[in-house]
């Protein structure tokens, strides 16, 4: 069977009873790509990972994972080719680091569990802790053991579910470096996070999820689409007819009023819109106090994209 890509997800959805975890999610991930799945708590990230990882069945849509369509008959084949680092490491705390890994190496049926365990430990730089019981490790180190465990079967697609949640900045950076290392080795990675800078830093492409997909693109594309796409205008007195004043201005999409004499305009191109807007305002007899690009951070846009749902979810 020709492999169509590491992940191909079409209108995928999962509901628990009548609660929708996520729905109508479609995207593709190519081999070697690091794909970020960004969303707030309860967005459906973990559920998506579990569905793609064959742990739970979708209630709608379909997906091809590592070349195999999801469905009971392919479960084992998919599981052999992927691995998941879950939100919590889930190590056997009474077993040593090496014992934990060896058990999983055997479950994956690797030829030489000992050797593979050693390599995985090297990859996460934990060789010197191999004999320590997992219960004695810090949270950051446990996370690294979980990552090593996820590397044992040399997965075609590696799912990392919030790999840095609860880690301090140093441990976070270590995980980031490990992920960057894997990326440079060409491992396909599906990474969920609710941290923007993490997605920006590690991912080739990012999807923003909040029950449904809000946006997919390269981090810089998202930036371009989202940054400085607005102009803020302040006049001495409120405009008599703002609607008709803004209507004919090239490059201006919509507008809103943030104060009696302040307006925010969405624009396609600032370079075109700003001078034209100034002329239109002067033409309408308005006294301009300021025309400025509205600096919106990725975070603002992210919050805007997911804002309604976060509130809906808390209600």
């Amino acid at each position, binding site marked *: 069977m020709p492999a169509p890509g590491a992940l191909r997800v079409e209108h995928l959805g999962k509901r*628990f*009873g009548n609660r929708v975890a996520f729905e109508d999610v479609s995207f593709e991930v190519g081999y070697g790509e690091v794909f970020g799945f960004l969303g707030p708590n309860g967005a459906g990230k973990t559920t998506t990972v*579990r569905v793609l*990882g064959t*742990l*739970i*069945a979708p209630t709608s849509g379909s997906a091809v994972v590592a070349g195999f369509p999801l469905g009971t008959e392919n479960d*084992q*084949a998919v*599981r*052999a080719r*992927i*691995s*998941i680092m*879950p939100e*919590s*490491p*889930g*190590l*056997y*705390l*009474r*077993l040593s680091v090496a*014992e934990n890994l060896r*058990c*999983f190496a*055997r*479950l*994956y*049926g690797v030829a030489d569990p000992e050797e593979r365990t050693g390599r995985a430990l090297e990859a996460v730089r934990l060789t010197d802790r191999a004999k320590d*019981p997992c219960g004695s490790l810090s949270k950051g180190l446990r996370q690294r053991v*979980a990552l090593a*465990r996820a590397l044992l*079967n040399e997965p075609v697609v590696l799912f990392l579910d919030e790999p840095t949640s609860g880690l301090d900045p140093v441990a976070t950076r270590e995980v980031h470096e490990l992920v960057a290392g894997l990326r440079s080795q060409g491992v396909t990675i599906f990474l969920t996070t609710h941290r923007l800078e993490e997605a920006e830093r590690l991912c080739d492409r990012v999807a923003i999820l909040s029950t449904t997909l809000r946006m997919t693109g390269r981090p810089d594309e998202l930036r371009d689409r989202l940054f400085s796409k607005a102009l803020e205008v302040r006049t001495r007195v409120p405009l008599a007819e703002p609607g008709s004043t803004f209507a004919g201005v090239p490059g201006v999409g919509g507008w809103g009023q943030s104060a009696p004499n302040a307006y925010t305009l969405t624009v396609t191109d600032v370079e075109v819109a700003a001078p034209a807007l100034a002329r239109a305002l002067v033409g309408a007899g308005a006294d301009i106090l300021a025309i400025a690009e509205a600096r919106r951070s990725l975070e603002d846009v992210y919050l805007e994209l997911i804002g309604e749902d976060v509130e809906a979810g808390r209600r």
Partner: protein
Amino acid sequence: MSFSAGRVDAVFRKELQDYRRNRAVIATMALLPVVFVVLPMVQLFSIKASTASSTLDLRIGLSLLYMLLIPAVVPSTLAAYSVVGEREQGTLEPLLITPVRSDELLVGKALAVLVPTLAVAYSVFGVFLLAAALFAHPAVVSAVFRAPHLLVQVLFTPLLAGWSIWIGTAISARSSDVRVAQQLGVLASLPPLAVVALMSLDVITPTFGLALALGAGLLVVDGLGWRAVAAMFDRERLITGSRG
């Protein structure tokens, strides 16, 4: 993918490694047998030579039955822990992500309970027989070493363990609380012992044929029980928990 002995072995080994370092398990495995061997010994040596043979048989029967509590009860708490315990400690999800089949996982876990149980149960029985042969009154010795009794003991040890393990695992796969699962597990381990009791206490005269027939019956029940457990092992439910 077909059933893999390698994956069963991986589960089996990790379970044993875990048990070995679990003080509660070690204590159970060490203390219960001691408790269960003391009473039979006391019975054995308190029997006087003058005791009527029917009383003698009854008391020997009680001792033997008492020792059969080991294969019935010891595995039930371990088996009842096996699935819900992993769920509670968060280790089930990583396990279910691997290509391990449900039946491989269950067999690995069952063996890890069965092997130590058999070791303990047979050792205790061995100690009992040895003590009887060396120190007990000749009349007692001949009453102890009656072939049907020995057969019941040898045969029913693994069969009772098998029952406790499958029913404990079934309870474990369906409960959301370790303690509840373990209490239910212990209770559920006892019914087949009632049948065995009838033989040990000579209510039903234990003959070879009867022992074998009952053994075969329990074997069939154990076999069907296992199929039921494997069918009840619902990965999605185990992952999504009682919320789903």
